[in-house]
């Protein structure tokens, strides 16, 4: 995997290290990053995105503490063995929580009743 | 076209040109009136007209030629009416400048046609001077002499003689055609605001004249970066970098000061000398040849004696020029905080603060002082060889020493962070130039005449003493500032 794996938006209100951790969670939960797969080095990520290497290593350490990643001696960071390739449905749904909350808020602001919103959402999901 | 449009050229002119023009035209008018009062010859109106013509030449250059800037603006902004206004705004004052004095002098009994011709020639040549490529202006200094030389050979008619009117009209039409060509060229230029050797002189008039003191004196000169940007590539300074480095701090500082302080390769030095000295030598040679022809002999020491005064003047002004250039360059350096100062302040290897101070003074003073002492030795040798007399020798010595004194005092004041504020520097320079001129004129007179001027000589000596005292004070003040500074590379407040 190379450094283009991550999408970094420096101007976002979310700190860059959190953006990286969040993306790691998703990639691992969805199985796009398999167990044991090596991550791009801190230098590669920092160089590719022109961000401070300390930010990247902070993100990696946080992910390590969460048990997402493990440090392989002499090789760098890899997806931790404890991670099942595909998470339980509940865990994956939890990752969608912020977007669902935002959706709910927007719907309330537009004073839309739940039914049409759910119908439309179902249609969108059904089309996949 | 309404009145507001006609006023546009005047409004577009910078304030300093208006002041300058007012001054020159007033002086020319005063001179013309004075000629009317004091000249008892019948031909005085023509003489007065010529005095006015002298002023109007500059009016053509500073007041009419900048019309092209307005026209260029009009073209760039796609406002055709502005282009027409620029032309109208030039034609109207030109007609007034030629018509009004001609009418006035005509009423006083002068030859109307001749006066109008002289004035028209002056105005149109002034206009051409402002519009033609800058590089040609360098040769304008040679023009009067060339006209004189050619005129003597071809027996061109002078005002009042038959054929003058035809000649004058011809030259006016010729100048106007050339001006129109230059105007058109500038208008069509894809980069009309670019300054360069082949661009008109008027482009320089846009530079705002805002600062006072040395900055005010320097306002006419572009700063070193712009100067280099404008130079053609073949004129680029050929610096000799080999000896630079921490082992040769003085040499390295000279590289960093640039311009006249910079150490150059032999080829570079030779080329610089050729560019600076060649035109001067050419003029001198022509003058000498002309003088030799007048005397009817070859070039001899007797001739050199005749010209001793000129050599003395030349030497003194070279000395002053060196001082002025050096101090203005240093002044520019010590005002920028994005150029050499931060680089030098943080450059390792220049030595302890005391060493840096010493080396900096050596690097900034010795190149100028070197040229000045060279000139001094040459002049003294010449003066001794042709027995100019002690007063002239003293004057030559004094003027060169004064240049050196001004150089030392003002260098210390700039580097020490205590430059003269406001008009102090300008006043100081003017006083110096006046003193040098007076001393030279007085000392080069006949000895008998000079003897009768003894009180003047005494007064002059007193003025010199006072001036040197003031220089001493400026220098001492600067030195104290320099010693108190933690390091010499701190910018002076603007």
């Amino acid at each position, binding site marked *: 995997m190379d450094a283009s794996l991550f999408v970094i938006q420096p101007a976002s209100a979310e*700190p860059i290290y959190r953006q990286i951790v969040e993306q790691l969670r998703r990639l691992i939960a969805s199985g796009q990053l398999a167990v044991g797969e090596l991550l791009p080095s801190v230098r590669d990520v920092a160089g590719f995105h*022109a961000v401070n290497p300390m930010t990247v290593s902070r993100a990696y350490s946080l992910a390590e503490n969460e048990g997402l990643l493990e440090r392989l001696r002499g090789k760098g960071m890899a997806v931790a063995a404890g991670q099942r390739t595909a998470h339980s449905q509940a865990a994956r749904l939890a990752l969608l929580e912020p977007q669902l909350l935002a959706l709910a808020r927007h719907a309330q602001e537009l004073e839309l009743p739940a039914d049409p919103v759910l119908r439309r959402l179902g249609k969108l999901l059904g089309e996949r | 076209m309404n009145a507001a449009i006609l006023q546009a050229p005047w409004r577009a002119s910078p304030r300093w040109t208006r002041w300058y023009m007012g001054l020159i035209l007033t002086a020319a008018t005063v001179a013309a009136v004075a000629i009317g009062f004091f000249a008892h010859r019948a031909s005085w109106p023509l003489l007065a007209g010529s005095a006015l013509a002298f002023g109007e030449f500059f009016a053509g250059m500073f007041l009419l030629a900048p019309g092209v800037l307005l026209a260029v603006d009009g073209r760039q902004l796609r406002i055709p009416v502005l282009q027409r206004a620029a032309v109208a705004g030039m034609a109207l004052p030109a007609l007034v400048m030629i018509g009004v004095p001609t009418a006035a002098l005509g009423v006083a009994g002068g030859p109307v046609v001749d006066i109008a011709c002289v004035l028209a020639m002056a105005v149109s040549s002034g206009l051409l001077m402002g519009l033609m490529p800058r590089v040609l202006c360098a040769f304008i200094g040679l023009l009067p002499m060339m006209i004189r030389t050619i005129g003597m050979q071809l027996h061109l008619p002078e005002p009042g003689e038959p054929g003058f009117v035809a000649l004058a009209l011809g030259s006016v039409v010729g100048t106007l055609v050339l001006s129109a060509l230059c105007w058109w060229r500038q208008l069509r230029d894809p980069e009309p605001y670019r300054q360069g050797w082949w661009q008109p002189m008027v482009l320089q008039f846009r530079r705002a004249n805002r600062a006072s003191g040395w900055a005010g004196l320097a306002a006419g000169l572009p700063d070193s970066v712009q100067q280099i940007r404008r130079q053609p590539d073949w004129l680029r300074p050929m610096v000799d970098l080999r000896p*630079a480095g921490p082992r040769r701090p003085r040499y*390295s500082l000279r590289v960093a000061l640039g311009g006249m302080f910079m150490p150059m390769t032999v080829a570079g030095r030779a080329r610089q000398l050729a560019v600076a000295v060649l035109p001067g030598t050419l003029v001198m040679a022509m003058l000498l040849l002309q003088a030799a022809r007048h005397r009817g002999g070859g070039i001899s020491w007797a001739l050199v004696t005749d010209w001793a005064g000129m050599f003395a003047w030349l030497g003194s002004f070279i000395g002053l020029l060196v001082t002025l250039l050096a101090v203005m360059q240093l002044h520019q350096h010590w005002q920028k*905080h994005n*150029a*050499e100062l931060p*680089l030098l302040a943080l450059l390792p290897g220049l030595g302890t603060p005391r060493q840096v101070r010493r080396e900096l003074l050596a690097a900034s003073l010795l190149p100028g002082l070197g040229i000045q002492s060279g000139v001094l030795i040459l002049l003294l040798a010449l003066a001794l060889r042709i027995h100019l007399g002690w007063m002239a020798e003293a004057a030559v010595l004094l003027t060169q020493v004064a240049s050196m004194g001004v150089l030392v005092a003002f260098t210390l004041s700039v580097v020490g962070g205590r430059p003269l504020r406001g008009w102090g520097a300008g006043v100081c320079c003017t006083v110096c130039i006046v003193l040098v001129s007076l001393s030279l004129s007085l000392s080069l007179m006949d000895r008998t005449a000079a003897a009768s001027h003894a009180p003047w000589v005494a007064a002059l000596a007193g003025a010199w003493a006072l001036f040197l005292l003031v220089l001493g004070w400026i220098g001492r003040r600067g030195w104290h500032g320099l010693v108190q500074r933690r390091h010499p590379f701190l*910018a002076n407040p603007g």
Partner: protein
Amino acid sequence: MNAQLRDITQANDSPLAVHGLVHGYEGTRVLDGVDLALAPGSVLGLIGRNGAGKSTLIRAMLGLLEPQAGQAQVFGEPALGLSDATKGRLAYVPQQPEALAWLSATQMLDYVGRFYPNWDSGFVKGTLARWDIPASKLLAKLSPGERQRVDLIRALASRPDLLVLDEPAAALDPVARRELLREVALRAGEAGTTVLFSTHIVSDLERVASEVAFLHQGRLLIHCGVDETKERYARLWLPARLAAAAPSGTLSRRHHGDGSLCLVVERDAGGLWPEAAQLGGARLDALGLEDLFVEIAE
């Protein structure tokens, strides 16, 4: 964070530290009592409006001007009297550099390089080629962007321990800017170079800076880690009926025409937002650095 910063101020080994800095020109105060210290290896982005005094602060920190009051130290030495050893560890690029305009890029880098003990001439050669700089053209004739990059090469080639850049990105196009940021980020991460740079392009700062300092009207309003700043400050909007409940001592407070109120609020020591944020109808928005800067500086 603040306690940690105070420790650094007192410690002598901070690469760059100022205390009680006051300076002004012709009666106006540009700097009004600034305390700032950089931790070794940190990348500090200095941000402020035009004329906020960023350049003056930087120049005072490096001993390029004599402040009216206060001390500046570089690696523990007084900034106005640096030793050659310290000067060799330090590189500074001023805003719109103009130095040595009469030399070509090669000549200038050769000349300057002779004075620095750690000069990397391989880096000079490689970077001149990589950044497409006409090396034999006189510096005066380069475009502002090219001139800026030559000076950046000069600064980076001395392999400094402390790199100070005043508006380094102002003259650069987006590609060149990204290259510069990459270089700065990697230097900081790998060689442990301490970096101070001023900018008003906030996204540059968010990429590479580890800390941010807001300079406003001669004072430092915030000096904090970039990530902490984003997590610690937010905008609180209160409708007119809740305006009375607004917490006091906020960083900025704006009244709207309809009586509603916009505040920049800060988490307390326990990481909690002020109570007003929990009231019904109140809205709390996360703030990017740019928004935060605009809210505070307006």
